């Protein structure tokens, strides 16, 4: 019952969010200075062959000469039929292009995200269980340093070391697992730099909580007490944070996909924005809005599973537990 209600509310919110975001993007693309058709023409035939005549032809073909509201209405009507249209540059169906690019981004994103926790969890746990210890101090310094570096510099440094100097890994490209290591690692290091302090703090706070002290009074060893009682509680803020990071992952992709020549969503969206490929921009913003809502749904569900007390609360509030 609780689950159903949560899922239903959140899915409605997700759809609304996606639609509003796409509508805003539509308005925004229209409001940007410069002629849409000329931009699209330049992306299609290349700058050398760009002439006003070609732009005029594309404008008529794509219906860009119609009033803005008519164009928007047409898009909504298509959407209601589950039709996202074709890219104005490539002529391919937007859904097919989205699927292709999202596939690449998801694999790399999940890989980088998982890798970041493979790095951050043990370090964060260790640092949190022994605050002030050498692991804590070194990891803290490293995390601050990494967080202060632009992601493209981390990427360049990794490429210089592993691809150019040691030549263990390819410097760019896609298709094999070897190609995914460096971009995933770049992503993971950036994410871990923020995750380590969060994990550490969560662990430190839980360790100081009364139920651990109580368990210790009961006669359990410190580590056992933490394992039995603390882990689940420490997990809640960590899960919330981890899920939130997924949206930052999308940001990281803009730079990482460019640097590693990876055909993912970030590169796709940037290309579409530069070419003013309206159907693609709209579809991508729909997807991003929906993804964001979906991630927060998963977070809430996880927290709900971890903390039974919150179930009652979430029903009372009629919304997600973590949404404050």
């Amino acid at each position: 019952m609780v689950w159903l209600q949560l899922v239903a509310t959140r899915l409605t919110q997700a759809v609304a969010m996606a639609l509003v975001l796409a509508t805003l993007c539509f308005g925004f693309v229209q409001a940007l200075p410069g002629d849409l058709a000329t931009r699209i023409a330049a992306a299609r035939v290349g700058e050398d062959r760009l002439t006003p005549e070609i732009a005029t032809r594309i404008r008529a073909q794509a219906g860009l000469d119609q009033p803005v509201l008519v164009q928007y209405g047409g898009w909504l009507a298509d959407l209601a039929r589950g039709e996202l249209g074709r890219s104005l540059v490539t002529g391919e169906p937007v859904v097919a292009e989205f699927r292709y690019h999202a596939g690449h981004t998801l694999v790399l994103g999940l890989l980088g995200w998982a890798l970041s926790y493979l790095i951050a969890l043990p370090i964060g746990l260790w640092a949190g269980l022994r605050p002030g210890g050498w692991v804590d101090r070194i990891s803290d310094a490293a995390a601050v340093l990494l967080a202060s570096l632009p992601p493209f510099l981390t990427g360049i440094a990794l490429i210089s070391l592993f691809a150019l100097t040691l030549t263990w890994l390819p410097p760019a490209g896609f298709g094999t697992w070897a190609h995914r290591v460096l971009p995933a690692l770049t992503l993971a290091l950036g994410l871990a730099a923020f995750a380590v302090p969060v994990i550490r703090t969560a662990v430190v706070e839980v360790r100081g909580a009364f139920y651990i002290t109580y368990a210790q009074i009961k006669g359990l060893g410190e580590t056992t007490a933490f394992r039995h009682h603390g882990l689940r509680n420490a997990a809640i803020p960590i899960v919330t944070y981890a899920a939130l990071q997924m949206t930052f992952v999308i940001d990281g992709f803009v730079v990482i996909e460019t640097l590693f020549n990876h055909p993912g969503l970030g590169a796709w969206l940037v290309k579409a924005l530069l070419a003013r490929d309206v159907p693609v921009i709209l579809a991508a913003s729909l997807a991003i809005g929906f993804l964001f809502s979906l991630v927060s749904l998963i977070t809430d569900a996880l927290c709900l599973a971890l903390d039974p007390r919150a179930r009652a609360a979430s029903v009372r509030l009629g919304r997600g537990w973590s949404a404050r």
Partner: protein
Amino acid sequence: MNRAVILALVLVVGGPWLAPYDPMEQNLLAVLLAPTWDHWLGTDHLGRDVLSRVLAGAPRSLGLALGCVGTAVALGCTLGLMAATGGRWLGALIMRGADLVLAFPGLLLALLLAGFLGGGVGPMLFGLTLTLWPQYARMTQAVARRALAEPPVEAARLAGFTTLAILSSLVLPVVLRALLPLATLGVGQAILSISALGFLGLGLRPPEPEWGAMINDLLPVLTEAPVQMAAPCLAILTAVLGLTLAGRTLLARQQHSL
């Protein structure tokens, strides 16, 4: 901490003044010179003095970041206070708006704006401010709500003070104190965003000596000009690191005093 902020401000204001050469002046006969007594950090691919450019970059990178966060704090604060004190609908409207902006990847949004409006200081300021304000609005709303429920506010309201007076004298100081660490960290992140835009070639227009753009310019000649390349990298690192540490100190002090 205070010393770090003062040093940062000195650099922002005095950086260009400290520069030994004109940061835009080229000498095509003296490109990519290794560091000498005349050019402590060498010269870049157009023969411009790298030290001067790094120093002149301070107001662009650091100063622009400060400007963005400052504007975002002002906007976020105003909207957050309106959400906390205004009606149910206004509050909901502002907060959903904040959610909406947070849903869109920040760098992409800034890219969209800065890239298409021509990549000047104005569009960049606009784009980054737009992506940054929601977090401050959320924080303001939360802190202000708590502050408004406290006894002194209750007393002031009974004594007949206007909402504006209460907000400015009792609530705003609390809010700003709470926002300061967040904003300090935010400046660091803004520097990173500006440099990322510069790296993608969508940031400030050349020949502006922005740190990210300097890295982008020097990357093809990395092996010939390692010092010149390292200089803007270190500038970004130091600035962001200093701000992060300062933000953390502030945060720790605040939690301590609570």
